């Protein structure tokens, strides 16, 4: 009797899950995002990230072209809800924060993310010195599982592509993850996954090495 209950409970669960999945698939194929609206809402972003989304180091704004829509959405939502970029020591994150507030609802966030995802990324210029790609390769063994052998990211693991990230931006993020400025909010699911990984990089030199390796993957 008890076993049967458990069994029926599980079969109910999996049936429900199957339904939910097919509904989501259906939903996502139906609700194509409004790219025109996305482009319109992207106007304000051009002030820092540029019309092509290539970023501007002077303003601490990284290249956002080349990131996938799901990651972009997550980040924008996180900012808006105070999950990312709301730490008192996150100076650059706090600059991005009010910008996320200009996206008034979930639909707008999705439209902008969809639009940014269509932008053509470029390999950014190297700005850091002293990184050793060979040493970095060993350290990257840890990262590989999530960010991929070519650093192209893994959507299923919510891990973004690092191929088009500015080196200065990656260094800043790794430091922020390590010190808990990013990824220590309990609601930051992705950040909480990434944070312990940043701990494997003992110091700034190790960070520069792994970044040099990521760049070598991107340039291949």
């Amino acid at each position, binding site marked *: 009797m008890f076993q049967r209950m458990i069994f029926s409970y599980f079969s109910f669960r999996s049936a429900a899950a199957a339904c939910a999945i097919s509904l989501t698939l259906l939903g996502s194929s139906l609700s194509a995002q409004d790219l025109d609206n996305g482009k319109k809402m992207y106007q304000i972003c051009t002030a820092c990230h540029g019309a092509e989304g290539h970023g501007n180091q002077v303003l601490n704004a990284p290249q956002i072209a080349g990131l996938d829509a799901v990651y972009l959405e997550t980040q924008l939502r996180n900012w808006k809800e105070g999950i990312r970029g709301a730490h*008192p020591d996150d100076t650059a994150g706090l600059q991005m*924060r*009010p910008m996320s507030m200009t996206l008034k609802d979930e639909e707008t966030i999705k439209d902008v993310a969809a639009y940014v995802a269509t932008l053509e990324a470029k390999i950014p210029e190297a700005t850091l010195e002293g990184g050793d790609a060979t040493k970095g390769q060993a350290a990257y063994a840890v990262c590989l599982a999530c960010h991929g052998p070519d650093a192209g990211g893994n959507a299923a693991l919510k891990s973004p592509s690092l191929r088009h990230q500015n080196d200065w931006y990656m260094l800043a993020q790794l430091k922020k993850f390590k010190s808990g400025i990013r990824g220590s*909010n309990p609601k930051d699911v992705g950040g909480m996954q990434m944070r312990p990984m940043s701990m494997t990089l003992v110091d700034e030199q190790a960070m520069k090495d792994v970044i040099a390796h990521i760049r070598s993957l991107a340039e291949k």
Partner: protein
Amino acid sequence: MIEAYLERASTYAGDIDNLFSVIFWIVVLWGGLAEIILFYFCFRFRKKEGVKGQYISGEEKHQKKWIAIPHYLVLVFDVFLIAGAISVWYNIKQRLPEPDLTVGVVAQQWAWTFIHPGADGVLHTEDDIKTIDKLHLIENTTYHFELESKDVLHSFSVPVFRLKQDIIPGRKITGWFKPIKKGEWDIQCTEICGIGHGLMPARVHITSAYDHQQWIVQNTPGSSGQAYASASN
């Protein structure tokens, strides 16, 4: 007058409003009088058959008095205004009453960090509570605030306190206020500080000492595994 539109939540909000009212009514009085006389003269010296318009240079005594007398009267009114303004300015900006508590306010492009003393009641100690865009205060408590900027000029404005103070990078500017009303109100930046200037609003929460104590307990770093009181609180 103003309190009908915007509540008064600090001890000196009333003083500012009164000064504002005095200025307003003096301006209304002189503005109104000038208009009345202007229209009266327009009517009295309107076009008439056989009367030629004349050019008045305003140098004769009986003409000059129309300028001189109001001029002196305005100066007399100014004495009242200046006396009022100095006393209010002294009370709010020059005098620093002994504080019960001190809070830190750090402005940056485009956010406010508020640093509250923790359970020990002392600022700049381990248990300080930092928040973004949310200032938590206790009703009927005299506060000092220490303003600092991480980057450019900003201005700390709390309309319900009738308080506005510029923030200058590189300096620590101290001032005071005493909240007298529980509630939640706006904090604004009132110095153009870049593209996000209009997007740096914050809120002040004024509560009873008891509620504030609860808030401290919930938000003290380390107490509940919390590294900082995030913006979502």
